[in-house]
């Protein structure tokens, strides 16, 4: 399946744009997504940490991703 990953803050700079499209296996998990992302954008590994959000919720590594989910990469937040 093809998914789009939204990017913000430092991750937008790492991607060079505000979203990227990726090919993932149909039963891919958040863990698999992070693996693919870090392979294509190794600078992600230099972040203090980052999370994946699925449909506006923080996701766990084992959570499955579906084709129409809204996926975003959440680098360390610093609001307030």
């Amino acid at each position: 399946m093809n998914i789009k990953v939204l990017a913000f803050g430092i991750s937008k700079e790492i991607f060079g744009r505000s979203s990227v499209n990726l090919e993932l296996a149909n039963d891919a998990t958040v863990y698999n997504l992070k693996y693919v992302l870090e392979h294509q954008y190794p600078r992600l590994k230099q972040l203090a940490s980052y999370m994946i959000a699925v449909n506006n919720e923080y996701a766990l590594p084992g959570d499955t991703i579906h084709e129409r989910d809204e996926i975003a990469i959440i680098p360390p937040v610093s609001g307030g």
Partner: protein
Amino acid sequence: MNTVIKIFSAPLNIQSATDWIMSPESGGIDVFIGTVRNATKGKPVIRLEFEAYEPMAIAEMEKIAKQAFEKWPVQKILIHHRTGVLEVGEIPVIIAVSAAHRAAAFDACRFIIDTLKQTVPIWKKEIFEDGEVWVAAHP
């Protein structure tokens, strides 16, 4: 839950926040106002830029407000957060909490800002004379 949670690209207004939070039922109101400091770790800051993943940021702030209502007997919660370019002295965030008694207002207000800084997907870039940095991005 009596809440107002909003993200603004224009300057925040303290008076409109406090106008909304006040009510005949409340006895104590605590208001936290974040302001852009002119220096960070001793280094002069020129300005800040805030970016939000808006739908998720709203959802996370609503979760925080819900937790505050569960933990303390508070009456109203307001969270206003700015995005965009902020000069020194401008206001990134206003949090206002009303309660019958002040202890709950203080506890909830502090919980909300502490939790917001940990969980809400909003990012701050500090712009210095000689460069810029996304706060907390790197170890």
